[in-house]
């Protein structure tokens, strides 16, 4: 804010100097993607290098822009790039908004993105389609950067669907596997459900405010009736839930692990799945204006974080445990941004810290798989610490970071969220606070299980493995750097004034203090809960585990193995009715709608065979169809009248 008088107003100055080229962040990886996808096999030899170089260049630029923005007084610039749509009163331009929030995301996407790109050089070495992989990866980076750099909800949406496509392409990377193809389709479809909600949010903005650009919408929220604000908030939340794998749209994310591990690390852990958090944080004036809306965000976050933890405890596939862990950690972020006020910054802080340690954990898992002939079943690991020391140490640091052992990242990022949840006060404070605290304990439990089963105890390897090997240096270096980030990022960000950096975006850094309990007490309690989780898990799994699935003795284990019936729910609520409806429509169209026409034609033409068929039972299906069709049209007419 430049002028105190405008303290209640957001002002986006026009970009100048270094910052007038922020669009290059998007353009470089996009151009690289186009080259890689069009050049085909000709780029096989240098494709991976171009892919890494482009994202690396974007990272260097992102650092430069970051410092340029720090030097500015007003901390938010927007740039007009060209016109996109203008019809009647609706106008959207290609435009960039560069402020502390988007700068932070740009650094995360390009920085962690670059490391994972480099890792993928090694991981994808044997894959004949490696350069195409880098094309998709660059495409993802470009779309993700557009998502966080757009200055209009429509710009965000274009990036939003762009990352969805990249995610679809990369999940179904091994497309000759039916499971991978299905997982990719499932991810795209469930995301589209959220996207449809996002679209409706934009329609509401246009209908009531005449625009979808950030400035105008945030400006006008105050004048909206509360019902409309709530509707916009809920629609945006729907979009966010789809992209971020939050309840009730969480079921696609674990299946997304069908993709190569670098994809899981970059897209389905560190960046894309946090887009929902970005959206809510970006649209904070809307959520600030509706307490009901933001409370629902908190509730979704709290519920999902527990759901992710519980399922994570029951999984034996290392990547799926990490996937449910991601679901759960993003739950924490939703919880934080739902709490609002100073907690927005806490949510983003946790997002960054999570970006480091979860990406590191996934790369570690990939390294283990690399050495174990793509085995992902933790029951068939064990004792690996001796064979892959670098992986062991980096994963170990990521493990300590995620469960929140001081002074690693997770401690600085997760603990404040738990405290902020308790500080909400009243019954909500207790419910959400205890959920977050319980989640911390469960996280410690399943992560300890993962770590102990993979690296310690007896060997439980399959017969075809003799000497698991450590990954090559090109994979180790990114793992080491991410491990350093997992250790240090949290503390550096907190003591480096990260929340103050975001202050211009959210307007406040104040986190309400807990009234009844001191900070030290809260920290102590949460550390005790975490240690409890670690100890129980260690006692249970230090001797390893059975190599095959054991019968579930309790209902909760059965439910957790079934992903808490999330897939069953989807199947009964959507797939089955969809199938029946489709079959009914196909039957009706062939026998009914078309039958009427051919029947009429037969009557007119006097074809006796057709007439005979008419008399022997088809009349009933025609009559039913006419009735059904009429009912559908009447219903649609009523919908028209309603609108």
């Amino acid at each position, binding site marked *: 804010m430049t002028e105190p008088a405008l303290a209640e*107003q957001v*002002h*986006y*100055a*026009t970009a100048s100097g270094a910052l007038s080229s922020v669009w290059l962040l998007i353009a470089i990886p996009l151009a690289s993607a186009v080259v890689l996808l069009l050049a085909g096999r000709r780029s096989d030899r240098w494709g991976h290098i171009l892919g890494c170089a482009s994202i690396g260049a974007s990272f260097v630029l992102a650092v430069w822009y970051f410092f340029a923005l720090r030097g500015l007084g007003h901390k938010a610039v927007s*740039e*007009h790039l060209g*016109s*996109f*749509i203008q*019809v*009647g*009163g*609706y106008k959207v331009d290609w435009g960039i908004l560069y402020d502390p929030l988007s700068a932070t995301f740009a650094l995360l996407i390009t920085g962690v993105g670059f490391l994972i790109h480099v890792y993928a050089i090694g991981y994808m070495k044997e894959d004949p389609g490696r350069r195409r992989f880098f094309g998709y990866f660059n495409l993802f980076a470009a779309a993700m950067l557009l998502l966080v750099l757009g*200055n209009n909800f429509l710009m965000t949406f274009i990036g939003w*669907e*762009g990352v969805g496509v990249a995610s*679809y392409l990369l999940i179904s990377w091994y*497309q*000759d596997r*039916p499971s991978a*193809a299905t997982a*990719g*389709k499932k991810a*795209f*479809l469930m995301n*589209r459900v959220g*996207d449809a909600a996002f*679209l*409706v949010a934009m*329609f509401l903005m*246009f*209908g*009531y405010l*005449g*625009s979808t650009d950030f*400035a*105008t919408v*945030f*400006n*006008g929220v*105050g004048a*909206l009736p509360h019902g409309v604000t709530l509707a916009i908030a809920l629609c945006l939340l729907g979009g966010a839930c789809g992209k971020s794998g939050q309840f009730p749209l969480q079921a696609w994310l674990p299946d997304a692990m069908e993709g190569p591990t670098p994809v899981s690390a970059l897209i389905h852990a560190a960046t894309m799945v946090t887009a929902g958090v970005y959206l809510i944080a970006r649209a904070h*004036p809307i959520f600030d*204006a509706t307490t009901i809306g933001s409370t629902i965000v908190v509730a979704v976050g709290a519920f999902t974080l527990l759901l992710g933890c519980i399922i994570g405890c029951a999984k034996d596939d290392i990547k799926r445990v990490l996937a449910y862990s991601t679901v759960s950690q993003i739950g924490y972020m939703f919880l934080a941004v739902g709490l609002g006020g100073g907690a927005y910054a806490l949510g983003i802080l946790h997002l960054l810290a999570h970006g480091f340690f979860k990406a590191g954990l996934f790369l570690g898992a990939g390294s283990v798989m690399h050495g174990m002939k793509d085995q992902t079943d933790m029951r068939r690991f064990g004792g690996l610490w001796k064979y892959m020391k670098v992986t062991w140490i980096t994963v170990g640091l990521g493990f300590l970071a995620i469960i929140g052992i001081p002074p690693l990242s997770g401690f600085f990022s997760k603990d404040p969220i738990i405290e902020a949840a308790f500080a909400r006060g009243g019954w909500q404070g207790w419910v959400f606070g205890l959920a977050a605290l319980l989640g911390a304990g469960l996280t410690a439990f399943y992560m300890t299980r993962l770590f102990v089963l993979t690296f310690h105890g007896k060997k439980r390897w399959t017969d075809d493995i003799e000497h698991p090997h450590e990954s090559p240096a090109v994979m180790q270096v990114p793992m080491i750097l991410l491990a350093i980030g997992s250790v240090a990022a949290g503390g550096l960000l907190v003591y480096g004034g990260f929340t103050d950096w975001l202050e211009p975006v959210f*307007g406040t850094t104040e986190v309400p203090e807990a009234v009844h309990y001191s900070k030290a007490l809260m920290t102590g309690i949460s550390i005790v809960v975490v240690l409890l989780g670690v100890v129980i898990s260690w006692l249970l799994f230090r001797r390893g585990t059975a190599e095959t699935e054991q019968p579930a003795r309790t209902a909760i284990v059965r439910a957790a193995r079934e992903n808490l019936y999330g897939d069953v729910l989807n199947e009964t609520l959507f797939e089955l009715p*969809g199938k029946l409806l*489709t079959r009914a*429509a*196909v039957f009706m*169209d062939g026998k009914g*709608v078309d039958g009427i*026409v051919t029947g009429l034609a037969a009557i007119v033409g006097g074809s006796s065979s057709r007439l005979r068929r008419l008399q022997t039972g088809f009349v009933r299906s025609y009559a039913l169809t006419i009735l059904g069709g009429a009912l*559908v*049209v009447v219903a649609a*007419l009523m*919908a*028209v*009248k309603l*609108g």
Partner: protein
Amino acid sequence: MNNFPFLSVLTVAPAVGALVVALLPRSNPRLAKIVALVWSLALLAITAVMCVTFKANGPRFQFRESYPWIPAWGIRLTVQADGIALVMLGLVAVLVPIVIAASWHDADKTKRSVNNYFALLLALDATMIGVFAAADVFLFYAFFEVMLIPMYFLIGSFGGARRQYAAVKFFLYSLFGGLFMLAAVIGLWVVGGHTLDWNALSHISMSTSTGRWLFLGFFLAFAIKAPFFPFHTWLPDAGGAAPAGAAALLVGVLDKVGTYGILRFCFSLFPEATRFFAPLGLALAVVGIIYGSLLAVGQNDLKRLVAYTSIAHFGFIGIGIFAFTSQAGTGAVLYMLNHGLSTGALFLIVGMLVQRRGSANIRDFGGAAKLVPVLAGCFLVVGFSSLALPGTSPFVSEFLVLLGTFSTHKALAIVATSGVILAAGYILWMYQRTMQGNLNPELSTSSGFKHDLTGREKWVVAPLIALIFILGVYPKPVIDVISPAVAATMHDVGKSDPVPATRAVDNGSGGSSAVGDNK
């Protein structure tokens, strides 16, 4: 250049070309193909000049020409073009050479004359230009009906299995609608004071009931043509049986005559009836979106599947037209163009697959991406454009249609938005069943799948994909042409955009506006 008789040249030239191609020696089919292709490219060049000459901010109708025809009835050969017609003429000009190139070998295997096939395509071209350019209602009617003949022969003589059935069904169905239109045209001639000139008719007044009856006559013909639910059942048969190139023109252009006709004739000539029947139009359209999508999900035949997706897309065009806002209307016309590009490309690519496999049944494919990666990639890209992915041109139109519809009909727009989800379902499932998963062993032995896209096929696909992306990122030139014409049409109907319930205070200085916080 403004005095050059673009429209009559564009109408007559392809007809002449058709004659030339038909009369070329049968012994050298290659010559006929080349002549047809060059002829259509020349027409594309003329159309391009015409589009550049068109002044977006100029008079509503441009390039008007009028010649006497049947003086006794006051009927003249009158042509003119507004922004809506111009866009459709541009689409025809782009698609025809591409379709000719795509159909290069389609007629070789049939027993029929190759020359005739390409002559029919050019004849169809002439009627498509004529129908969009006509400014005399009788002339429009004449093209509307004559258009059926080349298409009837393209399907009936050169189509796949069940081609006879499909061709007759298509013909009779269209003729049936045409009869009602003919009655309405005669009625209009009577009440309009013995003229059928569009510009004159758009100023006459008529009684409410007359207007409504005449509206229905036109509307029925257009609803069959478009086609709207429940008049759509001819389309999957025709689209499934027609050769791929003809199917691309049928769905890409011919069907647009329906929605174009509604905008041009129903709206401007019968504004009161249009407002009266709008809820019916909206209802049929929104049912079409959901119904067409569900049916597309349930298809096992690639060509029929694409035909059903079009029925869903026509539903979007329909709600855009009847929502009566500038965004929805402009979006709908833009949709007519984009759907032509996107579904046209989809039909052509499906045609390449079917031609390689010798079957359109989805079960005969599976895992084909392994054998023909480039073809699979093009299929996927075009598929994504069909589900209106941002960055591709159909997104802009679908978004505008839904956005504009929402501002007048909220519940309806929300129902229609669910079509966005279904679209992802039918496209991705189609792709999965044909291209992904285990390789169908019969594919690896089939000779068609020995080679990926040929050079000719690349030239067919590349321009369409390029246009889809260019117009997806920068649709401004087209929108600038369409939106004044749509605004004029909305003005004819007597409708204007609703004002947003809450107008935000806007500083108006580029990119920077003050925003009130709202705690």
